[in-house]
């Protein structure tokens, strides 16, 4: 009896400790110039049981999802050199592997661990990076993503975004009732946390620039209301509840304001809501629809969707009362702009004969790149390093991501229900 119980408890503990991913990642379009890299399984030098994490698998998956690397699958590794061991680079040169990562983990007392890793340039036979990191039981995945960030930055020159989060909305329909959830997970789908559950729709999550809060629209009590919520405590604040539409909240780059869409004055227009005193400044005034505001990094200019020309198009305005300037002319439906963090590009929804697709536009040249195939793609969101654009595939009710150049694509499927409106967090501290 005692044995059975302790076995049950052990099994339960194993189950609880093996974190699961809410999203399954499937690469749907790879690129030929992805860099071959071999990540050797990290060795464990403790006497007791090693922590429940496959370090090399997390790092490989991260690098694979970036579209920039082609990690060698674990069962195809040519050899498995250990940390601090002399590496025979010739073996790897023959296999046309450009880079090699070896690592080790050892206990550092009281549920703490020391993780060491080295990144080698195979052709030069040189070490490019060598780190020794201390982590604890609760930060294992975080530390693994940090290793991915360090490797990514070393080899691409771009800051890695593997330790960031994604917010999204899920819908489950059962027996005629829908359950809407606002969730936040790691970018690989692990560690999902439910921020809000409702029987009425939840929409338009937007991250505060420091990554500590979300703004969103909730239709609880059959009214559109805008809330902000502190993620660490769950405390939330009702920000806007005017008659009619209260929608499309987007945090300003300085974190002090929300751009929102309200129809309290007759039809949908864009307002700037100051969070400190909830004062409103009306930014657009037109009989048509003005909505989906997005902030430029200057904390002043807003790009938005308007049907003032008859069909939805994107416009730019830099202060109340100024005449908005139209910025899209190609196509009959251009909407839902997102601005890259460097302010040089926008991603938006573009309609052509075969449906709604994600496109990007260079703001200086006006050149448009159609990045996806449709037919119901929407809700584009840039990674904080601008390398990828996350979006929703409406027809499959799944999430997908495409590299900013359109060459690499992946799908992120949920195990059940619909998932939509992905929003990539900023870099987190």
């Amino acid at each position, binding site marked *: 009896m005692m044995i059975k119980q302790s076995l049950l408890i052990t099994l339960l503990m194993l189950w609880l400790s093996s974190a699961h991913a809410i999203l399954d990642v499937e690469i749907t379009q790879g690129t030929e110039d992805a860099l071959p890299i071999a990540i050797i399984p990290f060795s464990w030098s403790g006497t007791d049981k090693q922590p429940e994490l496959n370090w090399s698998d997390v790092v490989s998956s991260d690098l694979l999802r970036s579209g920039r690397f082609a990690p060698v699958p674990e069962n195809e590794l040519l050899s498995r050199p250990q940390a601090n061991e002399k590496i025979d680079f010739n073996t790897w040169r023959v296999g046309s592997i450009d880079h090699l990562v070896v690592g080790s983990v050892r206990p550092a007392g009281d549920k703490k661990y020391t993780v060491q890793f080295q990144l080698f340039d195979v052709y030069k036979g040189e070490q490019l990076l060598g780190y020794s990191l201390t982590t604890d039981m609760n930060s294992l995945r975080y530390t693994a993503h940090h290793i991915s960030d360090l490797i990514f930055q070393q080899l691409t020159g771009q800051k890695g975004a593997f330790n960031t989060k994604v917010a999204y909305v899920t819908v489950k*329909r059962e027996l005629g009732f829908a359950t809407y959830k606002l969730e936040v997970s790691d970018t690989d789908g692990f560690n999902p946390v439910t921020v809000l559950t409702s029987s009425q729709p939840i929409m338009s999550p937007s991250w505060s620039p420091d990554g500590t809060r979300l703004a969103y629209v909730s*239709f609880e009590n*059959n009214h559109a209301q805008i809330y902000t919520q502190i993620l660490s405590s769950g405390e939330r604040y009702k920000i806007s509840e005017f008659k*009619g539409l209260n929608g499309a909240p987007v945090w300003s780059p300085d974190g002090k304001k929300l751009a929102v*869409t309200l129809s309290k004055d007759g039809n949908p227009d864009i307002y700037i809501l100051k969070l400190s005193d909830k004062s409103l400044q009306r930014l657009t005034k037109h009989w048509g629809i003005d909505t989906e505001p997005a902030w430029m990094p200057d904390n002043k200019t807003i790009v938005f969707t308007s049907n003032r020309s008859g069909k939805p198009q994107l416009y730019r305005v830099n202060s109340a009362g100024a005449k908005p300037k139209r910025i899209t002319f190609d196509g009959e439906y251009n909407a839902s702009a997102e601005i890259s963090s460097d302010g040089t590009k926008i991603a938006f*929804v573009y309609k052509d004969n075969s449906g709604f697709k994600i496109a990007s536009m260079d703001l200086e040249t006006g050149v448009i790149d159609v990045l996806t195939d449709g*037919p*119901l793609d929407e809700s584009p969101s840039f990674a904080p390093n601008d390398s990828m654009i996350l979006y929703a595939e409406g027809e499959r009710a799944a999430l997908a991501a495409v590299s900013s150049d359109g060459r690499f694509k992946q799908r992120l499927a949920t195990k059940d229900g619909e998932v*939509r409106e992905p929003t990539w967090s900023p870099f987190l501290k």
Partner: protein
Amino acid sequence: MRNAIFVIVAVLFLSGCPAQPPKDDAAVSQQDTDGNTASDSAQTGKLDGTNQTEGSSFVAGDEPYRKDAINDATSPLSQQTIYFDFNADTIKEEYRDLITWHGRYLASNPDMKVRLEGHTDERGTREYNVALGDRRAQAVSRMMMFQGATNKQIDVVSFGEEKPVALDHDEASWSQNRRVQLVYEAM
């Protein structure tokens, strides 16, 4: 200001022109699952308020705007969904009388409230669709106020594409989802 003008016009209109009741032979289809059927049968022209001469008594009884008429399947007022074309917020001809009658119903029953829920199909972006649903509901609201319904009786909410009634990705579903639903409540 614009609302005030509407109310004045509506009052003049109502005082000079008693409410025209919906007619018994009106071929308003019940709210079935097929949006097209609803609009097609409503297009028969028999609902046209100007076509009163061939009229007869109301199926729904002598008081067309009595309080429970909205729950009476034989009353046109039991039809409480108005359908729209893609990306449009213009009220189609075949729904003008229906909205007029609902407006008069509210004017006759000041203790009743209606929530106008605007919806769109799944095509296009989510927040744009919320704005489009808002415009649809506002258009219905304006027509109702023209008939004497008051601002206090009408609540407007747009769900955009968030609450479809049909889930397939084709026109048969989309046409049912592009709608304004009237949800009545006692005050």
